[in-house]
């Protein structure tokens, strides 16, 4: 295994889904359910059985809009405010109207959701305004349940193929994608009438404080290929300056899980053991307060459960140590920390792109359509804000249904054979060199520069220096990177995505000359929010081979937000007692 082989084959399908984590399997399943005659191919860099952000499972739904507990209007309002007004509500509202159907469908797949003694969904309040958090008692079975459905629906699965570029026809319509096998370096061209990208977050952008390249908050396999491929295909990307930064267990880098602990009475505390934020729901505004506390005399910040009854703390431990990131138990064992005894040190994550928690993604409408005809995006890499796992499932379903209908109306688009040959040369270039710089060193340097220069607070002059240094690394990558086998070649290709994402993060951040979304886009030389000029999306795209940004108006709200409500998420800090 891993020796580089020559090879190029071509397959055809109606709908190609790239990425088999959360949104992808649901998209493929829904496409096939809507048109059982359609040929649906699911391409995955790893293995669909265990890929993506929910590789091991998920402990709950963070954004369940369940009749009787919350309304689509209320949820849409909450997310608009949480995302500082920059929100095309149509997609959020549509999600909120339909996510309950998806919950019922997941329930039929065998995924259980917590119910109270009356048989009603046991929804918990974590957000600032509404009630949307629903625990999943057998959350560790999610991937297995999904995989069963894919097999039953006869979806064609190709594991260990990494897509590298999208193909378009002369008309600008999608024609398919080029992929490379991660164990043999053989190429696969997939011709498709429509393509759905569900390739996850750009989670390997910043460097974790541990310095370990793979010790990321996100699944480290999610290195931003979706963002890079969409960019090179000419699709527009929205609000990339709205970074993802999350609160987490320091060094372990897994979620601190105030969503799990909050309903039991756990909370985020400062070193005095005091609560300093009103609400533990993740937003840029909350992260700003977290950051301020971290650096203040009251820092650092902790997850506090040691005031709870031992049984309660142990119960939370049991959930956190078995579902989403089960190695957390081993981490605490090594440190000798028990939740009922001591507060657990927290920190902030490295930066990334991820609409699952913030808003940076490939720009999509309420049917998951990108700006390229026939190309769709869903899940963490699409621009629907704060969409989490249930958003990935629901928007994946929208993508699957629309994409299979689109495929039914068009024929295959022709692509340029020369383009495939050029792409093969680009991909294989690091294997043609006798020696040079290995991908891990290029990656380390690029991500260290991201931390040094791009991590908020954002300073214009630092950004310009960062861009210059990243350009030097890019030159090394394009001319001196060496890959000795197919596995290293996969890492080399990931580095190209990471550098593309770093460049996009810098470019979009410099374009928006204001501060917004709390810590996510805190520009110290433009410290104020400026609604007059910047209450708009920033769309980044490649035009005539160059990176460009443009302002794009926020669509008129469906659910109005009053003046008094719009800054509710800025009122996070608990007022000092007189």
């Amino acid at each position, binding site marked *: 295994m891993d020796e580089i082989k020559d090879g190029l084959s071509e397959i055809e399908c109606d709908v190609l889904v790239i990425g088999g984590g959360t949104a992808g399997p649901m998209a493929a399943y829904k496409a096939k359910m809507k048109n059982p005659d359609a040929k649906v191919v699911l391409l995955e860099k790893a293995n669909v059985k265990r890929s993506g952000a929910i590789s*091991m499972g998920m402990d709950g739904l963070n954004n369940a809009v369940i009749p009787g507990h919350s309304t689509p209007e209320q949820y849409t309002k909450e997310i608009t405010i949480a995302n500082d007004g920059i929100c095309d509500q149509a997609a959020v509202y549509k999600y909120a109207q339909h996510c309950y159907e998806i919950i019922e469908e997941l329930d039929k797949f065998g995924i259980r959701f917590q119910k109270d003694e009356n048989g009603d969904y046991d929804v918990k309040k974590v957000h600032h305004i509404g009630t949307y958090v629903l625990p999943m008692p057998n959350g560790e079975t999610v991937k297995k349940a999904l995989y069963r459905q894919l097999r039953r629906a006869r979806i064609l699965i190709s594991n260990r193929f990494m897509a590298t570029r999208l193909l378009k026809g002369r008309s600008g319509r999608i024609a398919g994608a080029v992929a490379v096998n991660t164990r043999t370096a053989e190429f696969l061209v997939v011709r498709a009438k429509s393509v759905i990208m569900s390739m996850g977050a750009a989670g390997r952008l910043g460097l974790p404080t541990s*310095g370990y390249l793979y010790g990321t908050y996100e699944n480290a396999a999610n290195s931003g290929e979706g963002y890079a491929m969409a960019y090179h295909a000419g699709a527009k990307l929205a609000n990339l300056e709205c970074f993802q930064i999350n609160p987490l267990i320091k060094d372990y880098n897994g979620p601190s899980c105030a969503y799990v602990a909050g309903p039991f009475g756990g909370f985020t505390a400062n070193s005095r053991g005091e609560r300093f934020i009103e609400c533990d729901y993740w937003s840029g505004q909350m992260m700003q307060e977290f950051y301020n506390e971290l650096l203040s005399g009251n820092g650092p910040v902790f997850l506090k459960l040691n005031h709870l009854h031992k049984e309660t703390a142990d119960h939370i431990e049991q959930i956190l140590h078995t579902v989403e990131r089960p190695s957390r138990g*081993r981490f605490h064992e090594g440190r000798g920390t028990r939740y009922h005894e001591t507060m657990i040190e927290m920190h902030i994550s490295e930066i990334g792109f991820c609409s699952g928690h913030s808003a940076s993604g490939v720009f999509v409408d309420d049917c998951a359509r990108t700006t390229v005809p026939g190309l769709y995006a869903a899940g963490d890499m699409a621009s629907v804000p704060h969409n989490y796992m249930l958003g990935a499932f629901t928007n994946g379903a929208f993508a699957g249904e629309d994409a299979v209908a689109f495929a039914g109306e068009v024929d295959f688009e022709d692509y340029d054979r020369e383009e495939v040959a050029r792409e093969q040369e680009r991909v294989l270039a690091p294997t043609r060199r006798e*020696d040079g710089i290995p991908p891990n060193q290029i990656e380390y340097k690029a991500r260290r520069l991201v931390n040094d220069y791009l991590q908020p607070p954002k300073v214009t002059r630092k950004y310009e220096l960062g861009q210059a240094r990243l350009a030097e690394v890019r030159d090394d990558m394009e001319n001196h990177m060496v890959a000795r086998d197919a596995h290293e070649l996969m890492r080399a290709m990931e580095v190209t995505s990471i550098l593309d994402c770093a460049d996009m993060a810098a470019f979009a951040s410099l374009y928006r000359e204001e501060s917004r979304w709390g810590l996510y886009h805190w520009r110290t030389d433009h410290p104020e929010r400026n609604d007059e000029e910047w209450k708009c999306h920033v769309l980044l795209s490649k035009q005539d081979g160059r990176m460009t940004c443009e302002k794009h108006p926020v669509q008129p709200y469906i659910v109005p937000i009053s003046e008094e409500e719009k800054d509710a998420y800025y009122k996070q800090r608990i007022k000092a007692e007189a």
Partner: protein
Amino acid sequence: MPLANTSTTVPVLVDEGKCIADKGCTVCVDVCPLDVLRISELTNKAYMKFDECWYCMPCEADCPTGAVTVNIPYLLK
């Protein structure tokens, strides 16, 4: 520029007494999201070839004989 062989201690351990890769099992290699496990040509047992671990645990959870243990990578433990 020649390349160095810098050693690192890897987080995933395989109990060769329990591992049945020599009987054809490849479960841990198949499920790893980062694709860092391989079957050794020398011992015919699974081992961690690349130190690129997200300590996510499918290899351990899905191993049919309980041969795999995921530890926290040294740099962050």
